[in-house]
Each structure stands twice: as C-alpha cells, then as structure tokens.
C-alpha cells in the first residue's frame, strides 16, 4: 500500500519530542519536584487524597448506602471517622466514593469534550473558509454564556443526572479546546513538514492526525490538567446546586448540599467534603506553581 510515503513521512518528522519517554525521566522529574518543600507537601497530600478516593472504597467494607437504626447524625468516632448522615449512613465511605466519582466524571467529561473540541479546532484551522467561520462563530456564542451558566442551561435542558452532567461538562469544555487547537494548527500549518507531507500526497486528516497532532501535543498536555481541575470544580458546584448526579449516589457536591442543610445539627457533615475540595485544590495549585517555576527558568528566582 502506502509504505513508500510512510517511510518518507518518518524521515520528514521534525524532532518528535514526545515519543518513547524512558521511565527514568518522569521519576527524576518527580524527585526534582519533591525537593521543593511546596512540591513535596502537595505531592504527599495528593497521594493521601488519591488513596482515600481510590483505595479506601476497595478496602473498607462499610456500605455507602446502608442505614443503621439509631446511628443518625453521629459525631466522628473510630467506627465512623467522618460521622454519619441524616439517613445513618457512614460519611467516611460516602466522602471517599463521592470524591472518586467527582474526579472520574470530571476526567471523562473533559477528555470527551476535548476530543470534540480538538477535532473542531483542527478542522477550522486546517480548512479555513466557511468551516472556520461557522465553527469560530459557534464557539464565540458558547463563550457568551458566563461561567457556570452554560452548564446550568444545558442541565435544565437535559434534566439533572449523571449523563446530562457529563454532557454539560463536555460541552462546557469545547470552546476553549477548539480555540486552542485552532491556534495550534494555524501556527504549525506554515511549517515545512506540513508542506512536505502534503506534497507526498497525505490526505488532510492524515496530515492532522499523524503530523500536526504530535507537534501540538505539548500545548494540550499543559492545558488539559487545568481544564480537568476547573471542570471538577464546576461539577462540585453543580452538585451543590442539586443539578449533578442524583441521590443516593454520593458526590462531593451532593455532600456539600446535604451538609449545608444539616450544618446546625452536624458540623462535620459539611466540613468533611468542604475540606476535601479545599485541600485538593490547594495541593494542585501548589503543584502547578512549583511546576511552572521549574519549567520556566525566567520565572525561577523571581519573587
């Protein structure tokens, strides 16, 4: 078939920085990160939170749905480290599962939204003309909805629930990723390797998927984690507004909502999920500060 162009393509690739990272490099990176006290602290806290969300539900046998008679709104104790809720359910396990589900739905929804956004952005940037105008104007329109409003409107349309929440978050992520991908393609399209690939007869999609995508990967690698974190926040906020995954499944937002209702009777009910969100966000922000200082020598040493 097209073995000829393939080998030629390989020869045409400019520095492919992202391929075959040896395992030693990320480890070394992690060690450098840990030498900074903020980095070490943030990594430790994140590790504890991830254990809490992903290991605890597997190890602890307490059911997040089981109500025990007479154990309503109990104070934190050895048996129930985070106390119990209004239906006598254990809040420790409910917070762990709620954290996990909020994290996972953020992850999947954002990746889904970004796949659509990047495809749209690639198309707009590569094709130009009418496709570009249509896509860019639609994205502008989505951006006219401030902050959380677009997600609220979409959930109003789909009806509350996990599916509509994920769809809303995915759509919420489309405008930014589209703009990012479009700008990246416009930057790359003038490079020689694109012209070379086109000259040897690569189709548009092949140029984009095999050549441009690899060289624009870095942009997305930096922005995607930020988008995931922001979306997790939006998910928690929507859950708090009662628009997220519906009971009895625990989510961080749902726990915040219920905790708010019972805060006069049980302060621990509200404080646990609020602390989890706060500590999670703080450690991620510290980590990102340390990372950007490490990666940007200009900022290093500047107060």
């Amino acid at each position, binding site marked *: 078939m097209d073995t000829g162009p393939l080998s030629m393509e390989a020869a045409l690739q400019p520095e492919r920085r992202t391929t075959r990272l040896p395992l030693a490099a990320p480890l070394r990176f992690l060690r450098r990160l840990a030498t900074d006290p903020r980095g070490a602290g943030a990594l430790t806290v994140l590790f504890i939170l991830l254990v809490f969300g992903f290991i605890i539900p597997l190890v602890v046998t307490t059911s997040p749905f089981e109500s025990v008679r007479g154990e309503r709104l109990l104070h934190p104790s050895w048996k129930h480290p985070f106390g119990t809720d209004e239906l006598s359910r254990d809040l420790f396990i409910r917070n762990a599962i709620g954290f996990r589900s909020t994290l996972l739905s953020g992850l999947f929804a954002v990746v889904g939204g970004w796949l659509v956004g990047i495809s749209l952005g690639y198309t707009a940037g590569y094709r130009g003309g009418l496709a570009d105008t249509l896509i860019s104007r639609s994205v502008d329109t989505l951006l006219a*909805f*401030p902050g959380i*409003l677009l997600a609220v409107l979409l959930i*109003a349309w789909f009806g509350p629930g996990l599916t509509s929440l994920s769809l809303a978050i995915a759509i919420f992520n489309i405008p930014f990723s589209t703009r990012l991908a479009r700008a990246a393609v416009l930057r790359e399209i003038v490079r020689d390797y694109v012209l070379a690939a086109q000259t040897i007869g690569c189709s548009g999609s092949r140029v984009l998927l095999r050549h441009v995508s690899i060289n624009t990967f870095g942009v997305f690698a930096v922005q995607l984690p930020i988008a995931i974190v922001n979306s997790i926040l939006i998910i928690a*906020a929507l859950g*708090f507004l*009662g628009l997220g995954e519906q009971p009895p499944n625990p989510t961080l937002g749902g726990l915040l909502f219920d905790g708010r209702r019972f805060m006069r009777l049980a302060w621990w009910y509200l404080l646990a999920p609020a602390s989890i969100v706060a500590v999670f966000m*703080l450690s991620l922000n510290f980590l990102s500060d340390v990372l950007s200082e490490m990666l940007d020598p200009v900022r290093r040493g500047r107060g």
Partner: protein
Amino acid sequence: MLSYVLRRLVRQFAPVIVIASVLIFVLAELLPGDPAAIALGETATPESVAAMRHEMGLDRPLPERYVRWLGSAIEGDLGRSTTGKSVTELITASAPPTLELALIAFTLGNLLGITLGVLAGIHRGGPIDMAIGVFTSLVIAVPSFVSGLVILLVFTVWVSWLPSAGRASLLSSPLEGAKYLVLPTVALSSTVAAVVSRFTRQSIVDVLTNDFIRTARAKGLSGRAVIIRHALKPSMLPVVTIIGVQLGGLIGGSIVIEQVFTRPGMGRLLIGAVNSKDYPTIQAITLLLVSTYIVFNLLTDLLYAWLDPRLRPALGSPG
C-alpha cells in the same frame, strides 16, 4: 472612535446576541412536553389543549414565535412562568439582592485587589509581597462557594454573629441589610481581589522597569510620587482587560453564592426554575445574564481601546 464603536456593535455584538438568543429559545422549544398541556394539568381534554395552544401562540411556526418572544422580551414582557406569575415581576423582585451583592463585591474586590497588588509590586520579594502572595494563592485555589460554606459554618453556627439565610433591603434598613451582606460579600469579593491583585502586581513590576520611571526617580521625585503619578496609570491597563472576565465570574459565582447563603436573588430564582422545569423563567434569566455579560465585555473592550489608541485598528479590522 465612533465608527469603531459602530463596527464592533454590528460585527461582534449583534451576531453573538442573536445566535445566543436563538440558542436559548430553541433549547427550551425542543424539549419534550407541551407547555399548553402542562399549564392545563392532567385533566385537560385534547380540545382544550388545542385551544390553549392557539391562545399561547404555540401553533405558529417556530421563527415567528422566536421573533415574538424576543420582541416582547425587549419591550420588557418576559412571558409567564409555569407558576402563573409574570416572569418580569419575578425578576424585578429578585434583581436587587443580586445587584447589590454583585456591585459591592465588584467594587470592594477591585479596590482591595489593586491596593494589595500595588503594595506587593512595590515591595517585590519582601515580606509584604510574600504575605500577599500567600493570601492570593489560597483564595484563588479554594473555590468561593467552598470557602463561603466554611465561613458560613464558622460565623453562623459556631459563633452565631450573623444570620445564615435571607436578605434585608439595604435602602430601607441599612444595618440589617449589611448583616446579611457581610459573608456573601467576603466570599465573592475575595476571589475578585486575589485575581486583580495578581494582575496589578505583575503590571506594576513590569512598569517599574521602564525608563520613564528611572527618569522620574532621577529628577528627584519621592518613591510615593513616582508610584502615584507615573506608575499607577499605565499599570492599570492590563487590569482593565480582566473586568469582563471578572464579571463573568461574578455572575456565575453569585448563582452559587446565593444558594450558599440562601439569598433570594436571581441565582436562586434560576436554580428553582431549573428544578421545577419552569422554562420561560430559565429562558428569561439566561437571556438577561448573557446580554449583561456581552454588554460588559463590549464596554471593557471599548474602554481598553479608548485608554490605549494603539489597539483600535488591531481589535476591529479596517473595512
């Protein structure tokens, strides 16, 4: 300048608002369920539903209904809520709590943010800068509704200094109104202050490296005079650009913050409408918030172009 304003209005403002309003209208129209049947209840006969559809104008084609809807919205008639009340009245009643909170949080947040940013910028690298840096990092990291929930727990449950829910009019009873406003204002304005402070600090640091600052120092001006008379104005330019972004954050933030502090504002009206599938109210509030946001973004751009004439040709391509 006038032609620039007009060009912006026709090219960017009008299309976005038209498409956004179409989207808001069509989303609700595509929903399953017949508003006429819902309004009449379960006992309605097909004939009465058909009569109601005619009365509500639902038997007209979609584009015609859109034009009517937008037309009457512009005239101030936002239709009827599914509860039977006039949406215009619902919104007029819920606007003051939202507006006073947003306005106060915006003003306080900007004043505090600019002050902190200037302080940090002048004392770059010093203990004041470090302290302000820690404050802004903390505030930016933790979302305002979560910190809002924590201060709510502390100040209304642990020490009951302030009321936890409700609102009193600032105009008729200022003291009572202020009590309800303290906590939500702290929650909302601290985020604004932190973001503005970061921008201002960076901007001051950049401006202070300019030659004209060195000249001002060289001719013997005091440090204070250099900052106030020379550095402050040019360093405000980048800060102006984020006013629009902040406003978006404030609109989104107040929806959630009103829920945290149970303030009877537009955010609560919107969430209540979403929960009861009250689409006319959802449409009206969304249209209102989106138009406000677009208008303020436009004003920000215009303000920026007015402050810095070099940007005019770049923003609105000639022609």
